[in-house]
């Protein structure tokens, strides 16, 4: 799990370094694609669905008085 957190944090930094240093050579389209992809590393479909599931589970857990989920566990 630690590695995932590390990747989430460092991916935009790597994107910034690549685009910052090689942006002129890469061109505009590739530059913004890299920046956006680096940002989107954690925003996979699994991540988004996890959030939705978590919120649904919370609503359910509130009605049934069972402990809710921790969104952090699902990232």
């Amino acid at each position, binding site marked *: 799990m*630690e590695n995932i957190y590390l990747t989430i944090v460092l991916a935009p930094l790597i994107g910034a370094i690549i*685009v910052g240093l090689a942006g002129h050579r890469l061109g*505009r389209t590739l530059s913004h694609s890299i920046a956006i992809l680096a*940002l989107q590393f954690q*925003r996979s479909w699994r991540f988004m669905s996890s959030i939705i599931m978590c*919120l649904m589970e919370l609503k359910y857990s509130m009605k049934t008085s069972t402990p809710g989920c*921790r969104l952090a566990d699902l990232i």
Partner: protein
Amino acid sequence: MSVGFLVDNLTSVMLLVVSFVSLMVHIYTIGYMQEDEGYTKFFSYISLFTFAMFMLVISNNFMQLFFGWEAVGLVSYLLIGFWHHKESAVEASLKAFLVNRVGDFGFLLGIAVLLMFFGTLDYAETFTLANQVNGQTIFGDISVITVICLLLFVGAMGKSAQVPLHVWLPGSMEGPTPISALIHAATMVTAGIFMVSRMSPIFELSDVALTVVMLVGAITAIFMGLLGIVQNDIKRVVAYSTLSQLGYMTVALGVSAYSVAIFHLMTHAFFKALLFLAAGSVIVALHHEQDIRKMGALRKKMPITYFTALIGTLALIGFPGFAGFYSKDMIIEAVHFSNLPFADWVYCAVVFGVFITAFYSLRMFFIVFHGESRLDRHTEEHVHETALSITVPLIVLAIPSVIIGYLTIEPMLFTGWLENSIYIDASVHGSVAALKEHFHSAFSLMLHAIVTVPFWMMVGGSLAAWVFTLYRTDWAKKIQERFHRTNYVLESLYGFDRLNDIVFVKGSRKLGEFLWRVSDMTIIDQIVVNGSARLMRFMGSVIRPVQTGYVYHYAFFMIIGLMLVLTWVLVVGENPLIELGS
């Protein structure tokens, strides 16, 4: 202390908000900056900002937090001055940098005092030790916890632009609009709110600090909102509304409703980013015109921008059902249930703030999109809806601006979802507990709105905006003339800039000039450099007559010297040479 990550539900909310708004801004930038020479540099900077913001929210200790804190400040400085050929942009970036350093100095002092008394910078250890340190005092009988909280809050005041450290935020609008949306509305400026929420176990121990937080927030909410009324720059109106909303969040922190502050932070991030991007869309369509007096009747020419801006405005003014309604209503109710001193006054301020918010938001909306067109002929002929890369982020951001409040109010505030991140001493600060007691469902809250004072304040503000901008435009001018002194105070921004200019800018210049005259010119130049030369010259002039060049003169002095030594030995009876040698 070790470098590490703290990922709990509070972090998750922040990560979600930062990454989502950042994504929208990245996409928007493709269209907005397409003709700019610094296109790739801009993308590099916003990626770097996202990294810094992630570091800030995910840190598990104060050192990492401070690293992220400073890094976002640095990138903010770089991005405000991105168009460095504009003198105003350079000045604004410098202003932002310097004002933030004032806040950061307080923040750093707070961390230092915390380290001195807690012996650690790790969050978990700090929170565990908080109760032990609680009784200790500093500077006589001042509580250590209060000092730490107030110093940390100075940092939050700088970053989250609270009065009197707010002056940098309106100036930061000199930067490109995507940056205004990402950094100066949705993410970086909320770092202070996040930090205080994260430090809730410490803040909960000091009612003095909480009262100060609440009062500063209320002053910011009301007085910055009033400034939004007299602004004519489209981005500055939104900037002052950001200041006002940050004040609301700070008020929520003050009344120990940390989860409510985070809830408003989240909803505000979506609708304020939307409003900024919509403003940017208008600016692009009008060839970088930002004066709302030169706009008008854009409703039919820019339908997507119009509808998304309408959604953002309705969310901002707290129209029932929209995201801002739930979060703002919860803040007002939390203040209502607070038992802190001055909470009654603050309640009146935040309720009146709803009227002001509705007034300045809809004033801008009506002037820009309704009424008569005040565009010049050339612009009038060519104005049209902006490119897809600009309108798609608007549409995507409009969705959470409507539904996120309804969907998340219950899970975020009333299920204990943030309990593992936020600590509230419910026995002393019962606002959130009282909110929970009175809450039934998001839908019933919406229905109940019609019988609440804030709702009618919102309606009143909206009607006033309609009357003054569309129905009787001459009334606004008459009122402006009738209350010209008040208008002057508002247009001069309460004199903060003037005060800063006189006290800090001119004061530091005069201090520098004084130090230059006294230290550099007098002490170093005159005394040390020239003085030593003069001393040498004087000594030379004294000794020079002795240096005649005749051997018999030197022999004469040697004999005199020898005689003096012998006299010493004979009179005192000791051999000075032997003593000297030993």
